[in-house]
């Protein structure tokens, strides 16, 4: 399709370069070509690379800017830091797996479940909105839903006549926040899995059936192996998505749940750790985990792409 675009034909090249005839040597032309992308990369270096690099360097510096491993060791051994990472990792894991399962089932139901056609457009539109409806308003929405005076809370209390807060039940913990996160997690899964499910060719199922395979065989040996990279890749993406979230958690429960992002936010607003190096080391840990996620996601996407051509 795009082969003609990519193929460098000599006449076209010469025409393109003919704007300034005889002024530039081929070498300087190549250099000039790079000038065209310079603003973008200068921006990336200034506002992405250098800040990340500075976090990396400062993680290994003490208060006098001398090299040290103390910050890293403190993060790896300090109970508060370990707990913050534990909280962040567990909420990411819960909502990634939960979101992946529910999102997949929903995408499957709509694409292959024999539902009316209009449902699909409706669902993808809504998933687009919901996956972007994160942050402060989402937190308020769930406070209005299942907070102390929320609609669902009141419905349960009046209809079932129980005081659900009597036993110290609260939504302002990891499980409550997980329910909130799920609101933007599973729509993301729907958005990414819908095209993957579309890519399952009818012929594959027919071939499996012609060979005497049951639905189980089809899923076990054909559909699942094909979908697995997309499934795993998207689950990893959801994990990273929850791991980096800050606004939603902050607006939902203040600094009640000690996520890594919440601790870093507090560190920015006032040096709560009394040591800038510790904040940097915490942030570095986040970057490393997120980078691993991205690596996993990209490699899974590559595998998945084999079947979507």
């Amino acid at each position: 399709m795009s082969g003609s675009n990519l193929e460098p034909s000599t006449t076209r090249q010469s025409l393109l370069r003919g704007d300034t005839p005889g002024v530039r040597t081929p070498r300087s032309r190549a250099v000039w070509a790079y000038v065209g992308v310079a603003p973008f990369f200068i921006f990336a270096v200034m506002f992405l690379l250098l800040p990340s690099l500075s976090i990396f360097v400062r993680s290994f510096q003490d208060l006098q800017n001398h090299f040290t491993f103390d910050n890293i060791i403190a993060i790896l051994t300090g109970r508060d830091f370990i707990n913050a990472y534990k909280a962040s990792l567990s909420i990411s894991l819960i909502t990634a797996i939960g979101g992946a399962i529910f999102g997949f089932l929903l995408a499957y139901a709509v694409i292959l479940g024999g539902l009316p056609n209009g449902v699909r457009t409706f669902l993808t539109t809504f998933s687009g909105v919901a996956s972007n409806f994160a942050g402060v308003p989402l937190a308020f929405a769930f406070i209005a839903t299942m907070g102390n005076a929320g609609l669902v809370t009141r419905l349960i209390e009046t209809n079932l006549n129980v005081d659900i807060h009597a036993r110290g039940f609260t939504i302002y913990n990891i499980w409550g926040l997980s329910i909130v996160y799920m609101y933007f997690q599973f729509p993301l899964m729907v958005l990414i899995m819908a095209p993957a499910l579309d890519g399952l060719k009818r012929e594959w199922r027919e071939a499996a059936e012609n060979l005497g395979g049951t639905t189980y065989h089809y899923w076990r040996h054909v559909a699942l192996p094909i979908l697995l990279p997309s499934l795993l890749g998207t689950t990893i993406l959801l994990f990273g998505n929850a791991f980096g979230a800050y606004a939603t958690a902050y607006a939902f429960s203040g600094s009640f749940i000690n996520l890594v992002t919440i601790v870093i936010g507090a560190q920015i607003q006032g040096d709560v750790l009394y040591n800038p190096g510790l904040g940097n080391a915490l942030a570095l840990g986040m970057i490393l985990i997120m980078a691993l996620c991205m690596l996993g996601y990209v490699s899974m996407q590559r595998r998945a792409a084999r079947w979507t051509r």
Partner: protein
Amino acid sequence: MNIETGRGLGAWAFLHSRKKRSNEVTRKRGSVWAWIILILGILYFFVPLFSTFEFSMRMLKGRYSFEAYRVAFGDSRFYHDFGFSLLWAAITIAVSLLLIVPTAYWVHLRLPKLRPAVEFVTLMPFVVPAVVLVFGLIKLYGSPPITLVGTPVLLIAGYVVLSLPYMFRAVDTGLRAIDVRTLTEAAQSLGAGWGTILKDVIFPNLRVAILSGVFLTFAIVMGEFTFAALLVWPAFGPYMEEIGAMRAYTPQALSVVSFLLTWGSIGLIQWVARGAPGQQAQIAGTR
């Protein structure tokens, strides 16, 4: 394909008739659980939205009213901070477009080898969460040689970084759909300079792609909290949070406003992109 056609056909006819029946059965059975899942999904979508709306109507005891909205819209700080968000959104969109469109165009035309590098950069918001980026920016530009803390530069830079993934994705998809090279050559042979080519040839052809990038960036910036709050700039996100800590009911009214903004933006994207092929799901970074 043509191996043992005769026998194959017979087998196909047999299997086909059998398959049809089994398909009908699975479809019927499938529909039941498909509906259940769908209903669960719709409940998850709508119960919080409905609850928010219901909650926002309960400011006056014993009856539903729009009192919370009256209070929300009666606060002069609402207009102040909302106006700032509009300003940030406008600047972000302008900078993001100026940065992405020429770069993506140039990469398509001259430097296809650089495409993975550009794409990698645009995916960075997934690797560096907003709160971590703010942390790095404040530390780096908080003291000489370059001091940017206190100027809106860091805020805009942060927002532009947030917009990179979908802006690039949208423009990239748009560029794939048109023949960049031929259009450029045609313009050049008619004597157009680079500025004219971008402004009069490439931009108009990318209208749909650019608009979807613009609306999404708008939606993201209008509700953004992390950058504005931690860099201490007035914006709608931090305002909502602040009101949430002070009052009941009004925050939910603001949430409804914010939701309508997101909904409106996505709706506009769908509207401008109707019929346009290759529209991908827009995926945002973490917030």
